[in-house]
């Protein structure tokens, strides 16, 4: 094992108590909720064909919604519910993290439990139902003494399926703010740290297998009462798994939570801010991998304390404003808008991470393309790739309108693969990001935007409403403002994307901090 791999494994291992504990908590709560709701529903619906088919239909539809989307949908739903209760009932709750994750996962658990319970009960031999009546059982006694015990293997199979699904799908609750084993997977995919990805997958698979095995033992013990040891071993195993979260609770929680979106730069910046806060004597932890709109709402609700956003993103996505004025005006307007929600725009970090049209330097030179206007003249024969949202963003609309850009094909890709596709010649142009490490590494060129169709994307530090008057926090963050150049950020992004060969995200963040603290003479 190489030293780099060993150190990545050690880092992954160190995070296991937190991630595994949170994963177990959210999975078991979701499973318990799913059971509490679907078992009685199944019992109630089993002799009512209309209701039965309706419930199974709804559960089946919920099942076909991709896990990631189902989880993401619960967030705005709960946000609306929370604002409703705050307005009308005088209390609010957190629509972030745990609650939406538990609700969405519980919905996922319902179908297998409900379907198997109904199937199991319907599969009981009618002769035995008649016999249960014949020996003098009431309906309830027939259910508890005969039907449920006989349907138990089928019901338990449903519960086991639900457990495996929930534990697997819980890895997708990271983007809505619930810490899980998915944190390994999401951050690993972003930083090309395959050790993390594999570690996360293996941990969640092992957890699923362990819970499945424990449930199998319990089921086996229930069926063979003469072998009570199995039931005991299964119950003890399940209990031990349920107590895993205590490992995470044993450590104190940090005072400040630093959020990060789902890409490399954000992982570095959140680590950088957390490290800076700790240097200033404040306790801090990161909450990485949050979706773009989730993170803003989380800050506004003071679920997280600080994170880095980009002026253009807020301008277009959050406030839906039109064509952007010069960058200082954008900043001033945003500052005012954010203040209306109690959010403090502390200041710019110094670099900009804008969308940009990028080509290989040699190819651009050969075709004599320097600006987007040059590109527009030749673009009809070319293909372009962008990330999942680019082609539906206002920037793209502005680019096509202002320059008359039109391509032969438009392709959507995971950002990491986009650069590889450009270098391999599979696409001619990509919509990349100005601070990307690959621009320098792969000898690419950013085409100029003379008509300023793309708004400015200055990286800015945002502070949650509850920290608005927190001078200690402001003082701790002040040294970072204006100190992170585009070159620094590109270099850090490039190194972070090497999958840990240049050190962990934390190592890279610490390097930036050192260079800020001790500037070159």
């Amino acid at each position: 094992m190489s030293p780099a791999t060993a150190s990545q494994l050690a880092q992954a291992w160190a995070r296991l108590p937190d991630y595994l504990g949170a994963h177990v908590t959210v999975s078991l709560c979701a499973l318990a909720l799913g059971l509490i709701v679907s078992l009685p529903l199944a019992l109630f619906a089993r002799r009512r064909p209309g209701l039965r088919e309706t419930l199974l239909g709804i559960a089946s539809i919920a099942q076909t919604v991709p896990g990631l989307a189902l989880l993401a949908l619960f967030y705005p739903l709960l946000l609306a519910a929370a604002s409703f209760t705050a307005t009308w009932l005088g209390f609010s709750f957190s629509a972030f993290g745990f609650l939406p994750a538990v609700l969405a996962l519980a919905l996922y658990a319902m179908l297998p439990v409900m379907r198997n319970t109904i199937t199991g009960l319907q599969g009981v031999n009618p002769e035995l139902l008649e016999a249960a009546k014949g020996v003098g059982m009431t309906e309830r006694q027939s259910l508890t003494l005969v039907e449920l015990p006989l349907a138990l293997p089928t019901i338990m199979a449903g519960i086991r399926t639900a457990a495996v699904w929930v534990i697997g799908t819980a890895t997708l609750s990271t983007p809505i703010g619930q810490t899980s084993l998915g944190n390994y997977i999401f951050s690993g995919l972003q930083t090309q740290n395959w050790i993390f990805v594999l570690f996360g997958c293996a941990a969640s698979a092992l957890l699923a297998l362990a819970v499945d095995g424990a449930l199998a033992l319990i089921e086996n013990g229930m069926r063979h009462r003469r072998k009570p040891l199995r039931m005991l071993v299964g119950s003890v195993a399940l209990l031990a798994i349920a107590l895993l979260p205590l490992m995470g609770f044993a450590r104190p929680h940090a005072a400040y939570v630093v959020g990060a979106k789902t890409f490399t730069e954000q992982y570095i910046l959140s680590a950088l801010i957390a490290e800076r806060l700790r240097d200033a004597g404040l306790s801090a932890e990161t909450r990485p991998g949050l979706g773009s709109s989730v993170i803003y709402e989380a800050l506004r609700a003071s679920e997280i304390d600080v994170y880095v956003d980009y002026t253009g993103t807020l301008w277009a996505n959050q406030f839906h404003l039109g064509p952007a004025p010069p960058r200082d005006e954008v900043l001033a307007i945003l500052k005012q808008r954010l203040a209306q929600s109690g959010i403090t725009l502390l200041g710019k970090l110094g670099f900009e991470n804008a969308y940009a049209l990028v080509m290989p330097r040699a190819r651009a030179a050969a075709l004599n393309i320097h600006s987007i206007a040059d590109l527009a003249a030749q673009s009809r024969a070319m293909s372009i790739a962008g990330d999942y949202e680019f082609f539906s963003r206002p920037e793209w609309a502005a680019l096509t309108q202002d320059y008359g850009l039109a391509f032969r094909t438009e392709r959507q890709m995971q950002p990491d693969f986009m650069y590889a596709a450009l270098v391999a010649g599979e696409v001619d142009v990509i919509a990349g990001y100005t601070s990307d490490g690959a621009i320098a590494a792969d000898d690419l060129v950013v085409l100029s935007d003379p008509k300023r169709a793309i708004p400015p994307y200055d990286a800015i530090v945002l502070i949650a409403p509850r920290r608005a008057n927190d001078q200690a926090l402001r003082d701790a963050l002040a040294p970072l403002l204006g100190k992170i150049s585009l070159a620094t950020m590109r270099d850090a992004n490039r190194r972070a994307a090497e999958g840990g060969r240049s050190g962990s995200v934390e190592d890279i963040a610490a390097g930036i901090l050192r260079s800020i603290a001790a500037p070159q003479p």
Partner: protein
Amino acid sequence: MPPAITFDHVTKRFGAVTAVDDVSLAVARGEFVAIVGASGSGKTTLLRLAHRLTEPDAGTIRVHGDDIAAGNAIALRRRVGFVFQSAALFPHMTVAENIGITPRLLGTAPAEIAARVSELIALVRLEKDHRDRMPDELSGGERQRAGVARALAARPGIVLMDEPFGALDPLTRDALGDDYRALHHRLGLTSVMITHDITEAMLLADRIAVMEHGRLIAQGTPEELAASDDPSVRYFLSSPRRKAERLRALLPQGSA
């Protein structure tokens, strides 16, 4: 003293089909009555009506003089034993738990149930070590003995049996039938047995009721039925008669 069971102009329809058509029948206390008929003649429905496993569309059924429709169905079923066609033992319970189920539902103390189960296992001539076995570990005949024991557990005065020995091999069937008849006398039971086998009915029962298309077409002792000139009854009786004649020819007196 009123009869143990009386069916008074009882009718039961399933959709367009009249399964039991205006049947009146009285079963005296201590009597062993067999109800015979072809498949679909309504005999099983008649028995199920007496246990309130189904409710009549017209007519009255009395047990010991009381209209059962006026009482509690659960209480009725706990005090009238029922033996099912294929024993229908609960597969997830041991033989002992199956036998003791009705006393358990009645709230009898566990020690008392255990004693009663031992007594019943001896009574129906099961092996002692069958007690803790699961039903699927028993033979068909043993399962049906356990089924009879289960029906007798709460000391019912009346036992209803739905083709109890139909699925067994002939030797087991004879042995079980004889054993049951002995129990019937020893315990002073009133027994009603459904069967499609007229020979079995004649050998075991005091009195036979014949059903056809939902109607009760004849009732009486084997002798009385033999005197009937109803063609259906005569047809029914022709089978045992032919069998008896053939057996007499094949097995001459004195040979064994």
